């Protein structure tokens, strides 16, 4: 579907919010929580933060919740009843105010969750999520979307992309069929674009490194243990980077309860020492340097090779959240410039 340009005023956006809420939709948007800005359920446009570069966490929780029930079980009289989660019972969500990088991340998540074994819960959630992005007027030193095929005004992954034109008006690019349906469901709110443009409203982000150098360099550097040890020496092996990341999809499955209970899916991180620990006791990635290497290989080599999509959108969250300033961008630059 070809992108259609429209415009919308802030007060019309407020009406959209009311309509969505009245229709029982949940709205997830960047909101001030203490000193941080993060995605949370909001009930008005006024609650949505506007003066941030990026939120702490990504909105991936809309399709890949932090904790998700897969099914519940109850045993009685020697028999076990299982009640599976039904995608039909899920509510609708509007993710509002995410950045173009976050919107692009849905494709990376979908590549994994609909790969060889389609995940019905993920697909149901994705189908029930409307993605309304906001382009970036500002970037910071941690952003590198343009190096990985994205940009401050990129529309990929958004159903509608808004750009703040000032004086309470937004350019609204209607990107997808779902976007078109959103416009149709709210007659009179979206107006003709009348030649409005976003280019001079976007941040300038020069590509930080040459992406096509990364995968080949990684292949050459793979066995250079000293290189990975140097890079990862200060890494503490926590899960902050994986959890704030919009494309990280690793999960654990835990059964909780006894006679009755639930099977839950929850986030996991390749950085944890336990991640590849076998029950035999052998751990193919016993060193943090191997786990750090894996993180980069997975995002920049394995995923492109197998799913034809990058596992990174350059949002920079991992670097901002990292307690020891691992700064993935720095490491990627070092890899791109490494002499074989």
């Amino acid at each position, binding site marked *: 579907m070809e992108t259609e340009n429209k415009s919308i005023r802030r007060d019309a956006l407020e009406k959209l919010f009311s309509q969505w809420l009245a229709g029982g939709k949940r709205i997830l948007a960047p909101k001030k929580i203490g*000193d941080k800005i993060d995605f949370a359920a909001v009930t008005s446009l006024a609650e949505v933060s506007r003066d941030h570069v990026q939120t702490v966490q990504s909105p991936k929780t809309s399709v890949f919740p932090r*904790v998700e029930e897969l099914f519940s079980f109850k045993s009685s009289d020697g028999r076990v009843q299982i009640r599976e989660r039904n995608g039909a019972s899920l509510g609708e969500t509007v993710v509002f105010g995410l950045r173009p990088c976050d919107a692009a991340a849905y494709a990376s998540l979908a590549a994994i969750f609909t790969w060889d074994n389609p995940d019905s819960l993920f697909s149901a959630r994705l189908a029930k999520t409307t993605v309304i992005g906001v382009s970036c007027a500002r970037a910071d030193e*941690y952003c590198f979307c343009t190096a990985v095929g994205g940009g401050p005004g990129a529309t990929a992954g958004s159903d509608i992309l808004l750009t703040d034109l000032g004086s309470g008006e937004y350019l609204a690019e209607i990107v997808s069929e779902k976007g078109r349906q959103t416009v149709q469901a709210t007659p009179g709110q979206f107006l003709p674009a009348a030649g409005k443009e976003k280019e001079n409203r976007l941040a300038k982000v020069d590509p930080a490194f040459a992406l096509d150098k990364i995968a080949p360099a990684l292949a050459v550097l793979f066995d250079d243990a000293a290189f990975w040890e140097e890079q990862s*020496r200060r890494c503490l092996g*926590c*899960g902050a980077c994986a959890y704030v990341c919009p494309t990280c999809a690793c999960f654990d499955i835990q059964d909780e309860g006894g006679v009755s209970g639930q099977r*839950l899916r*929850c*986030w996991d991180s390749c950085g944890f020492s336990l991640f590849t620990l076998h029950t035999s006791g052998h751990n193919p990635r016993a060193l943090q340097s191997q786990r750090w290497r894996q993180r980069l290989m997975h995002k920049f080599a394995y995923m492109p090779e197998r799913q034809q999509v990058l596992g990174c959108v350059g949002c920079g969250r991992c670097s901002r959240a990292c*307690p020891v300033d691992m700064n993935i961008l720095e490491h990627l630059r070092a890899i791109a410039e490494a002499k074989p």
Partner: protein
Amino acid sequence: METLRDKARELLAARTVQVIIGYGQGSGGGARAVFVREAADADALIFNEACRQNLAVYLMKPEVRKLGKAALVATPSALRTILQLAAENQVGDHDLLALAVHAAGEVTLLATLQAIEAHVTELDADLSAAEKAELRKYEALSLEQRREYWQEQFSRCLKCYACRAACPLCYCSRCTVECNQPQWIPVPAHDLGNLEWNVMRAMHLAGRCVNCGDCSRACPVAIPLYLLNQKLISDVFANFNARSGMAAKTDNAMSIFKPDDSEDFIR
């Protein structure tokens, strides 16, 4: 700063240590941990207000230990951490020496645990007046207010374990949460599991935490973990007159007892 770099160069050139664990320039004008192994690289070392991370956490990492004897650029918290680790038989004189840094830029070489102890005795290791005041503020809330406050805080917990990873005293090679027969602490980051995790970690640090604050700084969602630790530091001192990180050979407050410990809550 030059004194720090000079001392580092000296130590490395003489092979007194194999690595200097210190601070270097980080992103956004901040600082980050650096591991200097050659005298020529000592210029990477800095010390300023951005240098707050408790670098003692690296003393327990196998990847760093294998580099050899280390000199740690040590804030007061890091010095107390070294003593606490020594009291728990995790480090000895042969493992390290400390380069105690002062705000003014002076550096004091503390070559033995005994020297570190003598140095630490001069420090005011108590909670500051501001910290005590903040603690009292939370203690003064009603039961329901406290319950609501902490439920909201823990609901944000991601179970990323950044707090555990950043804490030098959480050095167990197999943490309780990694025991799954039974799965004692729930893995998923639901409200109940988050409460259990944070309570357990606070209790495992009772009598041990040196109040470096790294857990709170590491938390991506800004949960004020320091409040839990400071509460226990305050209670352990009030009840047992014990303070962690002051001596290289001492018992852990929670491993010993006194016949006259308080009983006023026991029927």
